[in-house]
């Protein structure tokens, strides 16, 4: 409690004025605090000025009026205990006297405050709350153990700030003081041991922490030795925590007993293997995260979309993982994600941030080697003694997926994890090496069986890994490395451990080679292979056993005439047949019923129930509605279905179904695409999400199909009002995805003008795909002023040749039109005071058109056109504009662009002549210029600029140019 002195003031500086919570000017009023303060008001108004006895009577009389009044008084007195230390003793006594529910209301409120408001609780109230806990424990109030556990949850791992240490000390003090009471609850024993074993790791360094650590060690050792079997219920993570403290002498001794003398600890305890083979219960893994951490992690894994997690991760990291002390928290978080966060199939098949991505983030942001190797151990901990009967695939899935998905972007991560996986086998605990090997082997087998990954060979035998590691993997896991041919990228399959998945299309590369042998030798083998392989989508997946074997891959073995006949037969297998299977009976009935029929809503309810259990039903329905004749024109039934599901909304439902379909069957996705876009334009045309789903998986053949659909008028994927937005979204996508998007866009006849504003978003370094697509399209257009403006608005960068390229092209094709636009832009932008303008452009991130920019682009164009026959710069509008600009230009700019302005010098001379002859002069000027005036100028320039042109691709041509031009300037002077 001595911590109190040091931290008198409230954290945020007062503003709210409540006595319970710290609040600032910004914080909204807290409803709980207001409620509790109202209760205090009631208590004080009832007891004000009364003697103790009278006050007690008054409170009792109020309580007799009913339950709400009882609650008011209990909460009022409780709040007084928290906010008025001087009255706490008296108020607690009153509370004990008047409470008629064994303090239940108070216990609930304490838990509520701990879980939701502890971080904002004022220091006095924290002290008082601990005081109250001690009183509750002393009086042996039923349920105080639960409050005690909630208290322990507030002690953050990896946090040695004064307030957190204060809490750890005070709760430990109560537990030690009231040891007899603690021993009455097995769960409390296990939870307390788990909590303090973990906290010991954080407590070192200062003498204060050293003292605390010794108390924690003594406390844990005594409970472990006296009540080992209560601690045993923790499961294998008890071993993990004991490993981290094994060097502390008391634990060293305990370890010796665990290994050599297990019976000393308990007659039922047979040794460390027994512990390692029991799965850790979720409540222990969860208890080491504070409620705030838990809320935020759960939010990330249930609501945040993959791709949108960056800021959330940064915020979480800043709050909890930014100090060296906090590194130990990573293991808690990883264990929590593997063991506790088990998303539903719906979430798994959605675009929500997957667990492996969070693990990847936690691994890549490790700042110390110790933290990193502990984090890896935490990630693989359930692998080491994995038993498919007792353990869950969900606990081991994040490790394999983070390895799989990191191979492309961060091969080093995959390599270090694979390396760890190999080395942990002999090194975890040599006497149990065989068990660990079996555990890892079981994990890998189970992963393949559950089809988290279809094959491990692409992971284990990947050219991105160095030879030694691959050799080690091959040596340790020959069973999973069997890929004689170079590894094939396997389609990414998220773990949906459902039977329907078991026959998902599979790339079994050995099958082609062995097909003949299999054909002749072993019919069964052929059958099983045939069943697994799917080259056409078969909608009724449940009835896989009855499903005909697809023979398409074997057709090439037949001679031509036979092959043709078989192919004809195959074509004859109509869509109607494919929708004749049992599930589709429900769909057919749905189509045949009238919507006002009571059976109709009954069927919808049934489907909604089935859908909860099996999300694939959604896209099966879409397929049926499209493929079946019975359903012709009834696509809108899907909307009724969507509204009947728990999702309750067409958009969400459609997106989830398309996502599920995308993951299971790309060809079905392509088949459905035209009708989805046609039937549900409001849901689809604005959805970058849906488009990305499609372009992320299609191949070039399917792209071509979709393009044809668009051009034949069967499919509209973009509309004028939303296309720009979608294209902007697509800038973050993979290269092929972006190309697909542009191809699909180009298949529509949307005027390019609509999407030109995207140029403002395109950075030459980050968006090469969009830039080249746009460039190739722009060259087909006649330049409009807006286009020229957008093009000129690109920031000048020596390596960004976009603007020069398109200007040059327009120079050749539309020189007069371009000249007019440039003139107009030069004059418009010249009329603004330049100073403010350039300031503005530097103050906004987006490109703004400035005079300097236009001139720079023109100068680049000029350099590019040197030595060509192009006489763009001799056109009257350009010369006029340059002159106009030069006249109001400051000296620096005149100097900088002197080469450019010098083109107009001649024209200046002629402008002094009367209008008529001036026109004449300009008409003839281009040629005469070439022959007469310019050469003089050109000689100099080509000398300096041919050199500079060559080096144009290298950085800093601007400086070079400036030097050159100043030399020209001084010459002419």
């Amino acid at each position, binding site marked *: 409690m001595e911590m109190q002195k040091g931290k008198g003031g409230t954290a*945020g500086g007062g503003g709210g004025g409540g006595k319970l919570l710290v609040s*600032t*000017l*910004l*914080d*909204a*009023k807290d409803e709980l605090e207001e409620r509790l303060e109202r209760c205090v008001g009631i208590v004080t108004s009832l007891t004000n000025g009364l003697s103790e006895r009278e006050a007690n009577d008054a409170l009792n009389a109020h309580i007799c009026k009913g339950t709400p009044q009882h609650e008011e008084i209990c909460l009022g007195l409780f709040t007084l205990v928290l906010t008025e230390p001087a009255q706490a003793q008296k108020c607690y006594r009153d509370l004990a006297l008047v409470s008629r529910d064994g303090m239940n209301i108070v216990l609930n409120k304490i838990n509520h405050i701990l879980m939701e408001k502890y971080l904002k609780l004022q220091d006095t109230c924290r002290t008082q709350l601990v005081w109250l806990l001690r009183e509750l424990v002393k009086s042996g109030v039923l349920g105080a153990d639960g409050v005690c556990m909630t208290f322990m949850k507030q002690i953050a791992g990896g946090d040695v700030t004064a307030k957190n240490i204060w809490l750890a000390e005070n709760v430990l003090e109560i537990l030690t003081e009231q040891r007899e009471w603690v021993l009455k609850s097995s769960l409390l024993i296990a939870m307390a041991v788990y909590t303090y074993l973990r906290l010991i790791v954080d407590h070192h360094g200062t003498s204060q922490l050293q003292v605390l650590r010794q108390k924690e060690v003594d406390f844990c050792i005594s409970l472990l030795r006296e009540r080992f079997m209560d601690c045993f219920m923790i499961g294998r993570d008890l071993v993990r925590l004991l490993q981290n403290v094994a060097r502390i002498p008391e634990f060293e001794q305990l370890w010796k007993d665990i290994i050599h003398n297990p019976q000393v600890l308990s007659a039922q305890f047979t040794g460390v293997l027994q512990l390692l083979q029991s799965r850790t219960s979720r409540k222990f893994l969860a208890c080491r995260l504070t409620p705030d951490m838990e*809320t*935020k992690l759960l*939010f990330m894994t249930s*609501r*945040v*979309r993959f791709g*949108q997690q960056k*800021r*959330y991760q*940064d*915020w*979480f990291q800043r709050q909890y993982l930014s100090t060296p002390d906090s590194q130990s928290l990573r293991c808690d978080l990883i264990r929590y994600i593997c063991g506790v966060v088990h998303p539903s199939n719906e979430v798994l098949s959605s675009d929500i941030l997957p667990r492996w991505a969070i693990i990847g983030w936690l691994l890549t942001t490790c700042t110390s080697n110790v933290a990193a190797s502990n984090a890896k151990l935490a990630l693989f901990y359930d692998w080491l003694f994995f038993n498919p009967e007792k353990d869950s695939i969900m606990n081991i899935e994040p490790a394999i997926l983070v390895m799989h998905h990191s191979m492309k972007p961060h091969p080093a991560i995959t390599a270090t994890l694979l390396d760890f996986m190999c080395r942990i086998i002999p090194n975890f605990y040599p006497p149990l090496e065989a068990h660990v090997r079996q555990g890892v082997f079981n994990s890998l087998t189970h992963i393949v069986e559950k089809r988290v990954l279809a094959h491990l060979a692409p992971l284990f035998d990947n050219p991105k890994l160095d030879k030694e590691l691959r050799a080690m993997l091959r040596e340790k896991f020959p069973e999973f490395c069997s890929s004689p041919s170079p590894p094939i990228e396997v389609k990414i399959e998220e773990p949906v451990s459902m039977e329907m998945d078991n026959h998902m299309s599979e790339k079994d590369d050995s099958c082609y080679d062995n097909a003949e042998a299999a054909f002749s030798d072993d019919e069964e083998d052929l059958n099983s292979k045939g069943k697994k392989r799917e080259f056409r989508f078969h909608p009724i997946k449940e009835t896989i056993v009855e499903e005909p074997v697809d023979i398409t891959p074997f057709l090439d073995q037949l001679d031509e005439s036979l092959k043709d006949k078989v192919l004809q037969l195959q074509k004859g297998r109509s869509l109607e047949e494919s929708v004749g299977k049992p599930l589709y009976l429900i769909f057919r009935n749905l189509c045949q019923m009238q919507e006002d029929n009571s059976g109709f809503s009954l069927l919808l309810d049934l489907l909604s129930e089935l859908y909860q259990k099996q999300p694939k039903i959604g896209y099966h329905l879409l397929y049926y509605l499209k493929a079946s004749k019975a359903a012709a024109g009834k696509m809108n039934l899907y909307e009724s279905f969507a509204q009947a599901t728990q999702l309750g909304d067409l958009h969400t439902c459609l997106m989830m179904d398309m996502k599920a379909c995308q993951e299971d069957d790309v060809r079905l996705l392509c088949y459905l695409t035209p009708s989805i876009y046609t039937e549900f334009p409001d849901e689809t045309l604005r959805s970058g999400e849906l488009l990305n789903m499609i372009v992320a998986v299609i191949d070039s053949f399917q792209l071509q199909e979709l393009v044809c659909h668009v051009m034949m008028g069967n499919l509209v994927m973009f509309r004028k009002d939303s296309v720009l*937005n979608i294209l*902007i*979204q697509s800038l973050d996508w993979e290269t092929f995805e972006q190309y697909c998007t542009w191809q699909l866009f180009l298949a529509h006849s949307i005027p390019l003008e609509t999407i030109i504003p995207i140029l*403002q978003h395109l950075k030459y370094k980050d968006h090469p795909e969009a830039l080249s697509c746009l460039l190739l399209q722009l060259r087909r257009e006649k330049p409009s002023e807006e286009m020229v403006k957008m093009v000129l608005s690109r920031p000048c960068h020596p390596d960004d040749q976009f603007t020069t390229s398109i200007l040059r092209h327009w120079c050749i094709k539309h020189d007069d039109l371009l000249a007019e636009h440039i003139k107009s832009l030069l004059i418009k932008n010249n009329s603004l005071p330049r100073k403010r303008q350039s*300031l*503005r452009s*530097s*103050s*906004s991130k*987006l490109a*703004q058109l400035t005079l300097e920019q236009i001139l720079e682009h023109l100068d680049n164009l000029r350099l590019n056109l040197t030595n060509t026959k192009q006489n763009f710069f001799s056109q009257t509008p350009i010369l006029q504009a340059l002159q106009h600009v030069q006249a109001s230009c400051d000296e620096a700019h005149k100097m900088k662009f002197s080469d450019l302005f010098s083109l107009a010098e001649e024209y200046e001379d002629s402008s002094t002549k009367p209008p008529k002859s001036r026109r004449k002069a300009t008409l003839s000027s281009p040629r005469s210029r070439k022959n007469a005036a310019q050469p003089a100028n050109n000689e100099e320039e080509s000398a300096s600029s041919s050199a500079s042109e060559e080096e144009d691709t290298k950085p800093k041509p601007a400086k070079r140019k400036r030097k050159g031009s100043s030399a020209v300037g001084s010459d002419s002077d």
Partner: protein
Amino acid sequence: PAGTMSTETLVKDVKPGLKNLNLIFIVLETGGCHGGGGPGSPRPPDPLPPPGRVTKTKDGHEVRTCKVADKTGSINISVWDDVGNLIQPGDIIRLTKGYASVFKGCLTLYTGRGGDLQKIGEFCMVYSEVPNFSEPNPEYVAQQSQSKG
């Protein structure tokens, strides 16, 4: 409280000139400042932002531009003085009686007279950063110069 029951406007529906706006958003960035100036106030002399995050107006107010977002998109809000120091990225904030106007070609939110910014949570809100409705919009500039002229 009765007042908070009114429905909130979404960021995508914020248009220049709208008043009495109630919004709930999450704070993405508290950097990127400009000089003061709602539509009525005089333009500060040189709006080049200092390296820090805060700009002082002539009359000594601190102005801070924060990027905020809801599920429909992001927008800038101009926050004045003390409240600006308290706002942190990740805060979920309710704006009451705000208004929107165009500042230097960018749609910007302001707290109106009698309006308020209140932190009601943190972190747990989904948002979409695009479209950014505060990107400079030439139409607004045109409209503004028209209405001035």
